[in-house]
């Protein structure tokens, strides 16, 4: 299995420029991997099938058939693994600076990518590969979360050589790799040590009081389910016993139940937020912003302006009273384990100012244009709220036949929802700047999403067939950190927005990272 690598080393031609295969022992790795993933996928199905079959067949017959099937399966899997090995070919095209890989048994896949698009190369070895003296090499490109290239069975020499070759080719092409950035940043960090900004316990407390209690409840959904089961059982027993009191008890108990839930949610939220964000501090180091927080697990993160894709600033009415505000920053991460959303909770005005300058949010030109949604927005949202109310009424009515109470609350609900939606409608708009787009939304919880248009990856404009007559539609901007969409807007205007920003993106290209 070492022959191809030694051959390559002796020759003067650059390595991997001809079509190369994995090591022959790779068949075993492919086989094991296939069997392992298929077993993981199919365990439940096969048990089900086995149970179904075992009733109809006698046991000896069943076992022999199953053994035969298992034998056949392993034979097929082995054959499949062999062809996987046989069909996998990769090479480096030195003229075009491309990496070619061709693989697949039934499903032939041809992948070609520019070597300078490579984000990361991982070399891994599991126990089987260690025994066989093999190593797997994964290549991450920025395009996908899935590892497009996963060479599972290279000999160790081969794998290292391939990695070195690729790294060499890449460093020749591009200086803008993550590694270089890190070096320059550490250099810069030693020069200046700027002020550390902190978020106090009081602010965190305010933040947790004012944030959505449902998030706190989500922590304990499973125990709560159990609790609810217990309660509803005892309630129904009591209702049966109480007979005539049932109606009153129903209404009051619902109110008590909701109030308890709310209180519980608030308390849990305080615990959750203080455990998570205790001692939140950030400081600017060179190009980066370093954050750290956490009571039990200390988390540290670094924000790089080039990686930030979307910023959203949130403030609800209570928080407005205390003049605190939350920043949510979405940045691009190719490692799934890391958080791509970073929250700055409860910032005072001074800290907001710091973050704003760091994120470059202050330098806005004159707004070009403000786009408000069509009046359909109101109709749709009022209708939605009333529909939900009717469904809820129906469910409640089933348990509690106090029709008058339900009707009164329904009548009260209509003006409330109209008022609510009217305010939502007022707050829902986008403002266009030369190279930024700001979306405002929310009534209780005001939200400002800020998108730098150079971070746009793709744009989609969508119009449902029932929107054609009113000529309204939806626009979605996709970035590497999340999406931003605006609905119920005039279709023609959306087309124009798309045209303008696309023009800017394509005529004066800038990097998104």
């Amino acid at each position: 299995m070492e022959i191809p690598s030694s051959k390559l080393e002796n020759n003067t031609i650059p390595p991997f420029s001809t079509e190369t295969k994995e090591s022959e022992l790779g068949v075993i790795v492919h086989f094991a991997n296939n069997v392992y993933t298929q077993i993981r996928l199919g365990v439940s199905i096969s048990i089900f099938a086995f149970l179904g079959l075992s009733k109809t067949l006698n046991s000896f017959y069943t076992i022999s058939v199953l053994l035969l099937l298992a034998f056949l399966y392993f034979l097929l899997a082995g054959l499949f693994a062999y062809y996987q090995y046989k069909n996998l070919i990769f090479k480096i095209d030195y003229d075009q600076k491309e990496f070619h890989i061709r693989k697949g048994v039934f499903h032939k896949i041809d992948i070609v990518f520019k070597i300078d698009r490579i984000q990361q190369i991982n070399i891994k070895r599991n126990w089987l590969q260690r025994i066989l003296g093999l190593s797997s090499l994964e290549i991450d490109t920025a395009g996908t979360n899935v590892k497009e290239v996963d060479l599972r069975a290279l000999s160790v020499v081969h794998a290292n050589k391939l990695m070195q070759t690729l790294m060499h080719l890449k460093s020749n092409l591009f200086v803008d790799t993550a590694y270089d950035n890190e070096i320059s940043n550490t250099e810069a960090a030693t020069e200046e040590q700027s002020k550390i900004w902190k978020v106090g316990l009081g602010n965190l407390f305010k933040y947790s009081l004012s944030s959505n209690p449902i998030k706190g409840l989500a922590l304990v959904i499973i125990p709560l389910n159990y609790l609810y089961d217990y309660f509803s059982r005892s309630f129904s027993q009591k209702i049966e016993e109480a007979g005539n009191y049932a109606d009153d008890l129903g209404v009051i108990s619902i109110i008590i139940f909701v109030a308890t839930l709310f209180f519980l949610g608030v308390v849990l939220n305080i615990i959750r937020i203080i455990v998570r964000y205790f001692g939140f501090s950030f400081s600017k180091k060179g190009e980066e912003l370093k954050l750290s927080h956490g009571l039990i697990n200390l988390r540290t993160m670094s924000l790089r302006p080039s990686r930030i894709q979307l910023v959203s600033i949130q403030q609800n009415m209570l928080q407005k009273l205390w003049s605190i505000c939350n920043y949510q920053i979405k940045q691009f991460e190719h490692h799934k384990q890391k958080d791509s959303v970073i929250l700055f909770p409860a910032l005072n005005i001074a800290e907001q100012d710091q973050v704003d300058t760091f994120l470059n949010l202050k330098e806005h030109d004159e707004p070009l244009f403000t786009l408000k949604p069509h009046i359909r927005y109101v109709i749709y949202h009022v209708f939605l709220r009333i529909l939900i109310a009717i469904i809820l009424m129906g469910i409640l009515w089933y348990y509690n036949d106090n029709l008058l109470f339900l009707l009164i609350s329904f009548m009260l609900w209509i003006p409330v929802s109209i008022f609510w939606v009217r305010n939502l409608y007022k707050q829902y708009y986008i403002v266009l700047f030369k190279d930024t787009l700001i979306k405002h939304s929310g009534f209780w919880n005001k939200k400002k999403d800020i998108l730098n248009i150079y971070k746009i990856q793709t744009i989609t404009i969508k119009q449902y067939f029932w929107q054609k007559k009113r000529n309204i539609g939806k626009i979605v901007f996709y970035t590497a950190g999340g999406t931003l969409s605006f609905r119920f807007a005039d279709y023609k205007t959306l087309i124009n927005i798309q045209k303008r920003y696309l023009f800017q993106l394509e005529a004066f290209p800038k990097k998104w990272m």
Partner: protein
Amino acid sequence: MITEQTGFQNIGIDILQSQIEDIEELKYTPIEASYWKLILLRYALLCCFVAGVIIILENISLKNYIENRYFLWIILFVFLIAYLILLRVSFLKKSYAIRTHDIVYKHGVLSNSITIVPIDRIQHVKVTESFLMRFFNLAAFDMFTAAGIQNGTIRIPGLKSKDAQRLRVFLISKIKDQNDGDTIE
């Protein structure tokens, strides 16, 4: 009423802007007609599979539970017909256009969606020829952007195998050109 307020054409770089063709007036290429045959074949396979599963289930366990088994078949039939109609609509709506700086892809079932991918943002491309596709000499063309696996992958199915390869070569060379020079830091 909102269109009147906008006056979008007045902004800034009007002369340059008019060089961009309007996406509504573009000439779109529909996907290959033979792709419909592939859809039908897949659909037929699906029908066989579903029918097979139901027949097996009926014989093993459902026999005792469902008295009126025709009811199940009727529901299934209606669903499959509706699905076929949706497939047809979706097929008819798929079309694409290639411009100098971007790829425009039209699709949707209940909606008309237009997705625009600037070539500069494409990370890599992939041509897939599955077992069934090869019968009809078709290929699916995937473009990957950095917007994640779900949102960032734009797939144009039902291209001629040759066309897909040609498009791949074209895009790869384009991506290369853009990397070579004209990006402004």
